[in-house]
């Protein structure tokens, strides 16, 4: 899959949730390169020197328009809040390996927390196209922090867990009754403690589990070795090229 340096033009920039920005953008010329769910882009930001890795949230049908869902947490990501329709955004994409494509016998649970839900929308889209049974399980502190709920509902069945019980079941995603159903594969993205708990639970229930890591990056292309994570064998693996998606059993998580 060829990586490209692309100038994107913002078609829509909205902030449907406080502290988050949803960007929809198209290449200023030519087509969007083919992307797999779970892959990411390295976005140039006016707020910092280095690019920031951001998941591909969705690619619209026809493949021209890409979506990014960004939480403004620091100087790099806050700058994305200043973008308006018509502005230019430079991206290096697609990067990373992406989620595995499940087989026909699989039933998939896509578990997201916080802004980690971003890549799951695209993955759900792809699973639906392939006719693979799946559901989303989305977690948040409260109902108003459930991101893109309507978009997820358009794509598939959605279970919700909120810590304050303001929507769906009360509690963490790992306490949700959805885990009682016979899924064969869990694909998850979110805060590391959540993913670790999800991986442990999946393991106990005999489900395979893929996790998407969010290590800090510099190059995003496997050249600088800044983004590494230690695998089960004690060797360092690049999150940007060997990941960001890893089988939970590959990592040195208990």
């Amino acid at each position: 899959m060829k990586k490209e340096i692309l100038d994107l033009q913002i078609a829509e920039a909205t902030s449907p949730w406080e502290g988050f920005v949803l960007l929809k953008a198209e290449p200023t010329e030519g087509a969007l390169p083919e992307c797999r769910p779970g892959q990411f882009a390295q976005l140039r930001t006016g707020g910092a020197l280095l690019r920031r890795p951001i998941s591909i949230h969705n690619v619209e049908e026809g493949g021209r328009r890409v979506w990014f869902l960004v939480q403004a947490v620091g100087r790099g990501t806050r700058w994305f809040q200043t973008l308006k329709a018509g502005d230019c955004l430079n991206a290096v994409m697609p990067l990373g390996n992406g989620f595995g494509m499940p087989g026909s016998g699989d039933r998939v649970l896509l578990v997201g927390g916080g802004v980690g839900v971003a890549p799951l929308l695209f993955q759900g889209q792809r699973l639906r196209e392939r006719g693979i049974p799946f559901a989303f399980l989305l977690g948040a502190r409260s109902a108003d922090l459930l991101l893109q709920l309507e978009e997820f509902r358009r794509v598939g069945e959605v279970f919700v867990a909120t810590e304050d019980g303001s929507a769906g079941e009360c509690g963490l995603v790992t306490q949700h009754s959805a885990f009682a159903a016979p899924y064969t594969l869990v694909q998850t993205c979110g805060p590391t403690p959540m993913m670790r708990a999800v991986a442990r639970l999946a393991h106990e229930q005999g489900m395979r589990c893929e996790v998407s890591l969010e290590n800090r990056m510099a190059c995003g292309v496997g050249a600088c070795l800044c983004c590494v994570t230690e695998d089960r064998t004690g060797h360092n693996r690049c999150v940007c090229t060997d990941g960001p998606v890893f089988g939970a059993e590959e990592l040195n998580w208990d």
Partner: protein
Amino acid sequence: MADLKVSIGALELRNPVMTASGTFGYGLEFQDFVDLSELGGIVVKGTTLRPREGNPYPRMAETASGMLNCVGLQNKGVDYFCEHIYPEVKDLPTQVVVNVSGSTIEDYAETAHRIGELERIPAIELNISCPNVRQGGMAFGVTSQGAASVVKAVRRAYPKTLIVKLSPNVTDIAEIARAVEAEGADAVSLINTLMGMAIDAERRRKVLSIGTGGLSGPAVKPVALRMVHQVSKAVGIPVVGLGGIMSATDAVEFLLAGATAVEIGTANFIDPGVSTKVVRGISEYLARHGFSSVREIIGALEN
């Protein structure tokens, strides 16, 4: 079009632009963005005698106009390089220089010797300046005696072009440059990263796993320029200049300061296509100022 050719000892470059060790992988990682045949050369990752896992994560922190890294020379060792990586890079359409590091003089010499046997590697860059490994690395690069003793041993083990990469974390870099010249180095390259630190005030913690790291990027450029200027006055061998080069103008500044060639590091992370843009920009500069060869601007400061 102006002539861009330069030579560093016996190493002939089609133009003075190379990429810096640790920032461009083995060149293969950038082939989607850069036509490698347009580059003067690439300096591949630091290679050591035995495999190294490097330092724990986090290894990187962004700072004002720069970044700190403490990767710590993660690499699979010289055997792996010779067996698995060399076959992939030997036919790249540019000069491939291997950056060599070690923790003992014997390690340096043995690694250099092994790389010397590889027909298609015309030069090594001896890294005596890595601030991120506890043993060796920078330890050799901060005294004239240490630098001289490594270069002496490597010179005996390695017949091809030997570039010695200097540390800026010293009191008098010119003195060290003279010491390595006296031991037979064919060229020096500078600067490696400047030792620094980042602290997260909210968490009251050091940001990097080992506390300190090497600073690179635009923040270090004025320091690098000064050192390149100073060293080029002090030695007779060619100087390769690097540190914070982001554009062709930056590269031209290093050439004017006395560098025969330049390397581009951190800038590759920000624009993966920057290296060949710098080549084209140098050509444009030469045309605009009526020079027929890039060699005319090396050390050509007017004051």
